[in-house]
Protein backbone atom coordinates (compact mmCIF):
# COMPACT_ATOMS: atom_id res chain seq x y z
CA UNK A 1 0.00 0.00 0.00
CA UNK A 2 1.40 3.29 -0.96
CA UNK A 3 1.36 5.67 1.96
CA UNK A 4 0.12 9.07 0.97
CA UNK A 5 0.65 12.12 3.11
CA UNK A 6 -2.66 13.77 2.59
CA UNK A 7 -4.14 16.10 5.13
CA UNK A 8 -6.41 14.98 7.90
CA UNK A 9 -9.13 17.01 6.24
CA UNK A 10 -8.99 14.86 3.12
CA UNK A 11 -8.96 11.71 5.25
CA UNK A 12 -12.12 12.81 7.00
CA UNK A 13 -14.06 14.18 4.06
CA UNK A 14 -12.61 12.07 1.28
CA UNK A 15 -11.89 13.22 -2.25
CA UNK A 16 -14.75 13.66 -4.65
CA UNK A 17 -15.36 15.11 -8.05
CA UNK A 18 -17.63 17.77 -9.33
CA UNK A 19 -20.18 16.50 -11.75
CA UNK A 20 -21.17 18.82 -14.53
CA UNK A 21 -22.88 19.11 -17.84
CA UNK A 22 -21.47 21.97 -19.82
CA UNK A 23 -23.07 23.76 -22.72
CA UNK A 24 -20.92 26.28 -24.60
CA UNK A 25 -21.78 28.59 -27.49
CA UNK A 26 -20.47 29.58 -29.97
CA UNK A 27 -18.18 26.72 -30.91
CA UNK A 28 -15.11 28.71 -31.85
CA UNK A 29 -13.59 32.20 -31.84
CA UNK A 30 -12.40 34.06 -34.93
CA UNK A 31 -10.88 37.54 -34.67
CA UNK A 32 -9.38 40.01 -37.13
CA UNK A 33 -6.29 41.27 -35.34
CA UNK A 34 -6.21 44.85 -36.64
CA UNK A 35 -7.27 46.01 -33.15
CA UNK A 36 -8.39 44.60 -29.81
CA UNK A 37 -11.25 42.17 -30.33
CA UNK A 38 -13.62 40.71 -27.76
CA UNK A 39 -15.96 37.75 -28.19
CA UNK A 40 -18.60 36.56 -25.74
CA UNK A 41 -19.31 32.92 -24.97
CA UNK A 42 -22.33 31.58 -23.14
CA UNK A 43 -21.49 28.88 -20.60
CA UNK A 44 -24.43 27.00 -19.06
CA UNK A 45 -24.40 24.39 -16.29
CA UNK A 46 -27.00 21.85 -17.38
CA UNK A 47 -26.32 19.53 -14.43
CA UNK A 48 -28.49 19.18 -11.33
CA UNK A 49 -25.69 20.30 -8.97
CA UNK A 50 -23.64 23.51 -8.81
CA UNK A 51 -20.51 23.57 -10.97
CA UNK A 52 -17.27 25.48 -10.61
CA UNK A 53 -15.48 26.03 -13.90
CA UNK A 54 -12.15 27.67 -14.70
CA UNK A 55 -11.64 29.27 -18.12
CA UNK A 56 -8.15 29.58 -19.60
CA UNK A 57 -6.46 30.54 -22.87
CA UNK A 58 -3.93 27.82 -23.69
CA UNK A 59 -1.63 26.92 -26.63
CA UNK A 60 -3.14 24.78 -29.38
CA UNK A 61 -0.28 22.32 -29.60
CA UNK A 62 -1.02 20.95 -26.13
CA UNK A 63 -4.10 19.30 -27.56
CA UNK A 64 -4.17 18.45 -31.23
CA UNK A 65 -1.88 15.81 -32.73
CA UNK A 66 -1.69 17.36 -36.18
CA UNK A 67 1.69 16.87 -37.85
CA UNK A 68 3.26 20.19 -38.71
CA UNK A 69 5.62 20.88 -41.57
CA UNK A 70 7.64 23.51 -39.81
CA UNK A 71 9.13 23.58 -36.36
CA UNK A 72 8.59 26.58 -34.15
CA UNK A 73 4.82 26.28 -34.02
CA UNK A 74 4.88 28.36 -30.81
CA UNK A 75 5.35 31.55 -32.81
CA UNK A 76 1.79 31.13 -34.15
CA UNK A 77 0.44 30.83 -30.62
CA UNK A 78 -2.36 33.30 -29.93
CA UNK A 79 -2.74 32.52 -26.22
CA UNK A 80 -0.20 35.11 -24.92
CA UNK A 81 -2.39 37.84 -26.45
CA UNK A 82 -5.67 36.56 -24.97
CA UNK A 83 -7.45 37.68 -21.80
CA UNK A 84 -10.37 35.82 -20.24
CA UNK A 85 -12.97 37.32 -17.90
CA UNK A 86 -14.10 35.99 -15.51
CA UNK A 87 -11.44 33.30 -15.01
CA UNK A 88 -13.53 31.17 -12.66
CA UNK A 89 -17.32 30.89 -12.48
CA UNK A 90 -19.59 29.04 -10.09
CA UNK A 91 -22.86 28.14 -11.74
CA UNK A 92 -26.05 26.91 -10.13
CA UNK A 93 -28.05 24.24 -12.01
CA UNK A 94 -29.52 25.48 -15.31
CA UNK A 95 -27.78 28.83 -14.86
CA UNK A 96 -25.45 30.42 -17.37
CA UNK A 97 -22.81 33.11 -17.51
CA UNK A 98 -21.28 35.19 -20.27
CA UNK A 99 -17.52 34.66 -20.65
CA UNK A 100 -15.59 37.35 -22.49
CA UNK A 101 -12.40 36.51 -24.34
CA UNK A 102 -10.33 39.42 -25.66
CA UNK A 103 -7.40 39.37 -28.04
CA UNK A 104 -4.99 42.30 -27.71
CA UNK A 105 -2.56 42.28 -30.64
CA UNK A 106 0.86 43.87 -30.19
CA UNK A 107 2.71 45.86 -32.86
CA UNK A 108 5.03 42.91 -33.37
CA UNK A 109 2.10 40.55 -33.94
CA UNK A 110 0.39 42.92 -36.38
CA UNK A 111 3.62 43.13 -38.38
CA UNK A 112 3.49 39.38 -39.22
CA UNK A 113 0.52 38.62 -41.52
CA UNK A 114 -1.10 35.23 -41.20
CA UNK A 115 -3.26 33.06 -38.97
CA UNK A 116 -2.65 32.48 -35.27
CA UNK A 117 -4.35 29.91 -33.07
CA UNK A 118 -4.94 28.99 -29.43
CA UNK A 119 -7.62 27.25 -27.37
CA UNK A 120 -10.15 28.33 -24.82
CA UNK A 121 -10.20 25.65 -22.12
CA UNK A 122 -13.26 25.19 -19.89
CA UNK A 123 -12.10 23.15 -16.91
CA UNK A 124 -14.31 21.69 -14.17
CA UNK A 125 -12.74 22.07 -10.74
CA UNK A 126 -12.57 19.50 -8.00
CA UNK A 127 -14.26 19.86 -4.64
CA UNK A 128 -14.47 17.78 -1.50
CA UNK A 129 -17.56 15.72 -0.88
CA UNK A 130 -18.75 14.06 2.30
CA UNK A 131 -18.03 10.33 1.87
CA UNK A 132 -20.87 7.86 1.86
CA UNK A 133 -21.04 5.41 4.74
CA UNK A 134 -18.82 2.42 4.01
CA UNK A 135 -20.65 -0.85 3.48
CA UNK A 136 -17.79 -3.06 2.30
CA UNK A 137 -16.57 -6.04 4.26
CA UNK A 138 -13.29 -5.43 6.09
CA UNK A 139 -11.35 -7.76 3.76
CA UNK A 140 -12.55 -6.19 0.49
CA UNK A 141 -11.92 -2.91 -1.27
CA UNK A 142 -14.03 -0.93 -3.69
CA UNK A 143 -12.53 1.46 -6.22
CA UNK A 144 -14.21 4.27 -8.04
CA UNK A 145 -13.15 6.83 -10.64
CA UNK A 146 -14.99 10.16 -10.49
CA UNK A 147 -14.24 11.99 -13.70
CA UNK A 148 -13.70 15.70 -13.91
CA UNK A 149 -13.90 16.98 -17.42
CA UNK A 150 -12.51 19.64 -19.71
CA UNK A 151 -13.81 21.05 -22.96
CA UNK A 152 -11.59 23.01 -25.33
CA UNK A 153 -12.60 25.05 -28.36
CA UNK A 154 -10.38 26.73 -30.98
CA UNK A 155 -9.62 30.46 -31.10
CA UNK A 156 -8.24 31.90 -34.34
CA UNK A 157 -6.75 35.33 -34.98
CA UNK A 158 -5.85 36.68 -38.41
CA UNK A 159 -3.40 39.47 -39.23
CA UNK A 160 -3.98 40.89 -42.71
CA UNK A 161 -5.66 38.81 -45.40
CA UNK A 162 -4.54 36.07 -47.72
CA UNK A 163 -5.23 32.63 -49.09
CA UNK A 164 -3.80 29.19 -48.35
CA UNK A 165 -1.36 27.58 -50.80
CA UNK A 166 -2.64 24.03 -51.06
CA UNK A 167 -1.30 20.74 -52.33
CA UNK A 168 -3.19 17.48 -52.11
CA UNK A 169 -2.21 13.83 -52.42
CA UNK A 170 -3.96 10.51 -52.14
CA UNK A 171 -2.91 7.12 -50.85
CA UNK A 172 -4.29 4.04 -49.14
CA UNK A 173 -3.73 3.16 -45.52
CA UNK A 174 -4.91 -0.20 -44.19
CA UNK A 175 -6.74 -0.57 -47.52
CA UNK A 176 -8.72 2.59 -46.83
CA UNK A 177 -8.45 5.62 -49.13
CA UNK A 178 -6.90 8.69 -47.54
CA UNK A 179 -6.61 12.28 -48.77
CA UNK A 180 -3.77 14.45 -47.53
CA UNK A 181 -3.58 18.23 -47.59
CA UNK A 182 -0.47 20.37 -47.38
CA UNK A 183 -0.69 24.11 -46.81
CA UNK A 184 2.52 26.07 -47.32
CA UNK A 185 1.04 29.55 -46.83
CA UNK A 186 0.58 31.64 -43.67
CA UNK A 187 -3.21 31.51 -43.98
CA UNK A 188 -5.24 28.44 -43.09
CA UNK A 189 -7.61 26.47 -45.27
CA UNK A 190 -11.06 25.84 -43.90
CA UNK A 191 -13.97 24.89 -46.04
CA UNK A 192 -15.86 22.38 -48.05
CA UNK A 193 -14.35 19.41 -49.88
CA UNK A 194 -16.05 17.56 -52.73
CA UNK A 195 -14.66 14.35 -54.16
CA UNK A 196 -15.54 13.06 -57.63
CA UNK A 197 -14.79 10.04 -59.79
CA UNK A 198 -14.22 11.31 -63.32
CA UNK A 199 -11.98 8.70 -64.89
CA UNK A 200 -14.44 6.12 -66.19
CA UNK A 201 -16.73 8.53 -67.99
CA UNK A 202 -15.94 12.22 -68.05
CA UNK A 203 -19.48 13.08 -69.14
CA UNK A 204 -20.91 11.41 -66.07
CA UNK A 205 -19.19 12.81 -63.00
CA UNK A 206 -19.96 10.93 -59.79
CA UNK A 207 -19.79 12.83 -56.52
CA UNK A 208 -18.44 10.41 -53.93
CA UNK A 209 -18.57 12.55 -50.81
CA UNK A 210 -18.74 16.07 -49.43
CA UNK A 211 -17.19 17.01 -46.13
CA UNK A 212 -15.49 19.78 -44.19
CA UNK A 213 -11.71 19.91 -44.24
CA UNK A 214 -9.23 22.26 -42.65
CA UNK A 215 -5.49 22.60 -42.42
CA UNK A 216 -3.61 25.25 -40.47
CA UNK A 217 -0.86 27.50 -41.84
CA UNK A 218 2.33 25.69 -42.87
CA UNK A 219 0.81 22.39 -41.81
CA UNK A 220 -0.34 19.07 -43.24
CA UNK A 221 -3.26 16.86 -42.47
CA UNK A 222 -4.87 13.63 -43.66
CA UNK A 223 -8.50 12.58 -43.96
CA UNK A 224 -9.84 9.09 -44.45
CA UNK A 225 -12.29 9.00 -47.36
CA UNK A 226 -15.68 7.70 -46.36
CA UNK A 227 -16.46 5.70 -49.46
CA UNK A 228 -19.31 3.20 -49.58
CA UNK A 229 -17.45 0.97 -51.99
CA UNK A 230 -13.77 0.25 -52.61
CA UNK A 231 -12.08 2.89 -54.73
CA UNK A 232 -10.41 1.64 -57.87
CA UNK A 233 -6.69 2.27 -57.64
CA UNK A 234 -6.53 2.60 -61.46
CA UNK A 235 -9.19 5.30 -61.62
CA UNK A 236 -8.61 9.03 -61.49
CA UNK A 237 -10.45 11.12 -58.96
CA UNK A 238 -10.95 14.84 -58.52
CA UNK A 239 -10.84 16.66 -55.22
CA UNK A 240 -12.42 20.11 -55.18
CA UNK A 241 -11.69 22.35 -52.19
CA UNK A 242 -13.63 25.54 -51.56
CA UNK A 243 -11.99 27.88 -49.09
CA UNK A 244 -14.22 29.97 -46.81
CA UNK A 245 -17.93 30.65 -46.71
CA UNK A 246 -18.08 34.25 -47.89
CA UNK A 247 -18.97 34.26 -51.65
CA UNK A 248 -16.96 37.48 -52.13
CA UNK A 249 -13.70 35.94 -50.97
CA UNK A 250 -14.38 32.26 -51.55
CA UNK A 251 -11.89 30.42 -53.75
CA UNK A 252 -11.85 26.93 -55.15
CA UNK A 253 -8.98 24.56 -55.91
CA UNK A 254 -9.06 21.26 -57.79
CA UNK A 255 -6.66 18.34 -57.63
CA UNK A 256 -6.38 15.08 -59.50
CA UNK A 257 -5.79 12.02 -57.36
CA UNK A 258 -5.15 8.35 -57.88
CA UNK A 259 -5.03 5.92 -54.98
CA UNK A 260 -1.98 3.70 -55.05
CA UNK A 261 -1.99 0.65 -52.85
CA UNK A 262 1.31 0.95 -51.06
CA UNK A 263 2.28 0.81 -47.40
CA UNK A 264 4.91 3.47 -47.96
CA UNK A 265 2.66 5.71 -49.98
CA UNK A 266 2.37 8.33 -47.24
CA UNK A 267 6.01 9.42 -47.23
CA UNK A 268 6.31 9.02 -50.98
CA UNK A 269 3.22 11.13 -51.52
CA UNK A 270 4.47 13.86 -49.23
CA UNK A 271 7.79 14.00 -51.07
CA UNK A 272 6.21 14.06 -54.50
CA UNK A 273 3.17 16.14 -53.73
CA UNK A 274 4.77 19.33 -54.95
CA UNK A 275 5.79 17.73 -58.25
CA UNK A 276 2.80 15.59 -59.13
CA UNK A 277 -0.12 17.64 -57.96
CA UNK A 278 -0.46 21.29 -58.74
CA UNK A 279 -3.35 23.33 -57.48
CA UNK A 280 -5.14 25.50 -59.96
CA UNK A 281 -7.71 28.14 -59.29
CA UNK A 282 -11.07 27.36 -60.88
CA UNK A 283 -14.14 29.39 -61.53
CA UNK A 284 -16.93 29.09 -59.02
CA UNK A 285 -19.93 27.25 -60.37
Amino acid at each position, binding site marked *: *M*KRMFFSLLVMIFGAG*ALNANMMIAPTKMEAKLDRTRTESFILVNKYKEPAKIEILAVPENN*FVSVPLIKDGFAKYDLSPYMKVSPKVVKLQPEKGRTIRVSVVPTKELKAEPGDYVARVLFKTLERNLTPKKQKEKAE*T*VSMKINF*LFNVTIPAYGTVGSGQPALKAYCFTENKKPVVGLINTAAFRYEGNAEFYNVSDDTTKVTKLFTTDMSVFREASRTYEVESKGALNTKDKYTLKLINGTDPKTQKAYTFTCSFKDSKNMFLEAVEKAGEELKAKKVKKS
Partner: protein
Amino acid sequence: MAQTATKVQDMTFPTTVAGDPKSVIINYADERAGVFTINGTLGSLFQTRVVQTSVDMIYGSYAVTASNFVTNPSSGTFGKSPITVRIGATATIESGDNYGGVTYSGTPTFEVVYIK
Protein backbone atom coordinates in the same frame (compact mmCIF):
# COMPACT_ATOMS: atom_id res chain seq x y z
CA MET B 1 -24.58 26.26 -32.63
CA ALA B 2 -23.94 25.16 -29.06
CA GLN B 3 -21.92 22.19 -27.98
CA THR B 4 -22.49 20.10 -24.91
CA ALA B 5 -20.54 17.55 -22.90
CA THR B 6 -22.39 15.47 -20.32
CA LYS B 7 -21.13 12.95 -17.81
CA VAL B 8 -23.47 9.98 -17.84
CA GLN B 9 -21.60 7.63 -15.53
CA ASP B 10 -18.39 7.42 -13.51
CA MET B 11 -16.27 4.28 -13.50
CA THR B 12 -16.66 1.65 -10.77
CA PHE B 13 -14.23 -1.24 -10.42
CA PRO B 14 -15.55 -4.59 -9.13
CA THR B 15 -15.05 -5.26 -5.42
CA THR B 16 -11.70 -6.91 -4.81
CA VAL B 17 -10.03 -8.79 -1.95
CA ALA B 18 -7.61 -6.53 -0.09
CA GLY B 19 -3.94 -7.52 -0.33
CA ASP B 20 -4.48 -9.81 -3.35
CA PRO B 21 -2.10 -8.48 -6.02
CA LYS B 22 -3.81 -8.27 -9.39
CA SER B 23 -4.73 -5.95 -12.22
CA VAL B 24 -8.42 -5.18 -12.47
CA ILE B 25 -9.28 -4.15 -16.01
CA ILE B 26 -12.38 -2.24 -17.03
CA ASN B 27 -12.79 -2.42 -20.78
CA TYR B 28 -14.41 0.61 -22.38
CA ALA B 29 -17.28 -1.64 -23.48
CA ASP B 30 -17.84 -2.85 -19.89
CA GLU B 31 -21.02 -1.72 -18.14
CA ARG B 32 -18.80 -0.33 -15.35
CA ALA B 33 -16.90 1.96 -17.77
CA GLY B 34 -17.03 5.74 -17.56
CA VAL B 35 -19.52 7.21 -20.00
CA PHE B 36 -19.89 10.71 -21.46
CA THR B 37 -22.05 12.05 -24.26
CA ILE B 38 -20.81 14.89 -26.45
CA ASN B 39 -22.16 16.78 -29.41
CA GLY B 40 -21.09 19.64 -31.61
CA THR B 41 -21.44 21.26 -34.99
CA LEU B 42 -22.44 18.82 -37.72
CA GLY B 43 -19.39 17.62 -39.65
CA SER B 44 -16.79 19.07 -37.27
CA LEU B 45 -14.03 16.97 -35.79
CA PHE B 46 -13.29 16.10 -32.18
CA GLN B 47 -10.73 14.22 -30.11
CA THR B 48 -11.15 12.69 -26.63
CA ARG B 49 -8.62 11.62 -24.04
CA VAL B 50 -7.94 11.28 -20.32
CA VAL B 51 -5.39 13.96 -19.45
CA GLN B 52 -3.45 11.99 -16.82
CA THR B 53 -1.41 8.86 -17.57
CA SER B 54 -2.29 7.50 -14.14
CA VAL B 55 -4.09 8.64 -10.98
CA ASP B 56 -4.13 7.42 -7.40
CA MET B 57 -7.45 6.27 -6.03
CA ILE B 58 -7.29 7.38 -2.44
CA TYR B 59 -8.79 6.54 0.90
CA GLY B 60 -7.27 8.69 3.60
CA SER B 61 -3.53 8.12 3.42
CA TYR B 62 -3.85 4.93 1.32
CA ALA B 63 -3.93 4.67 -2.46
CA VAL B 64 -4.38 2.25 -5.37
CA THR B 65 -3.21 3.28 -8.84
CA ALA B 66 -5.45 3.48 -11.89
CA SER B 67 -3.81 3.76 -15.32
CA ASN B 68 -4.06 2.76 -19.01
CA PHE B 69 -7.06 4.97 -19.64
CA VAL B 70 -8.66 4.28 -23.01
CA THR B 71 -11.36 6.44 -24.58
CA ASN B 72 -13.58 5.12 -27.36
CA PRO B 73 -13.96 6.79 -29.76
CA SER B 74 -10.72 8.75 -29.36
CA SER B 75 -11.60 10.92 -32.37
CA GLY B 76 -14.36 11.36 -34.90
CA THR B 77 -16.80 13.65 -36.66
CA PHE B 78 -20.00 15.01 -35.18
CA GLY B 79 -23.21 13.87 -36.81
CA LYS B 80 -26.83 14.64 -36.05
CA SER B 81 -26.94 12.48 -32.91
CA PRO B 82 -24.86 12.88 -29.73
CA ILE B 83 -21.78 10.69 -29.53
CA THR B 84 -21.32 8.35 -26.59
CA VAL B 85 -17.72 8.15 -25.38
CA ARG B 86 -16.77 5.24 -23.11
CA ILE B 87 -13.66 5.08 -20.95
CA GLY B 88 -11.78 2.03 -19.73
CA ALA B 89 -8.86 1.75 -17.28
CA THR B 90 -6.76 -0.65 -15.23
CA ALA B 91 -6.47 -0.67 -11.41
CA THR B 92 -3.26 -2.22 -10.12
CA ILE B 93 -3.53 -3.74 -6.63
CA GLU B 94 -0.24 -4.64 -4.96
CA SER B 95 0.32 -7.19 -2.22
CA GLY B 96 0.74 -4.43 0.33
CA ASP B 97 -2.66 -2.96 -0.55
CA ASN B 98 -4.35 -4.74 2.35
CA TYR B 99 -6.36 -1.96 3.92
CA GLY B 100 -9.92 -3.19 3.28
CA GLY B 101 -13.48 -2.29 4.03
CA VAL B 102 -13.27 1.06 2.29
CA THR B 103 -13.85 2.73 -1.07
CA TYR B 104 -10.87 4.23 -2.87
CA SER B 105 -11.65 7.08 -5.24
CA GLY B 106 -9.67 9.06 -7.80
CA THR B 107 -10.39 12.04 -10.05
CA PRO B 108 -8.80 11.96 -13.50
CA THR B 109 -9.90 14.47 -16.13
CA PHE B 110 -11.73 13.48 -19.31
CA GLU B 111 -11.12 16.01 -22.07
CA VAL B 112 -13.05 16.82 -25.24
CA VAL B 113 -11.12 18.73 -27.88
CA TYR B 114 -13.29 20.44 -30.47
CA ILE B 115 -11.14 20.76 -33.59
CA LYS B 116 -11.40 23.42 -36.31
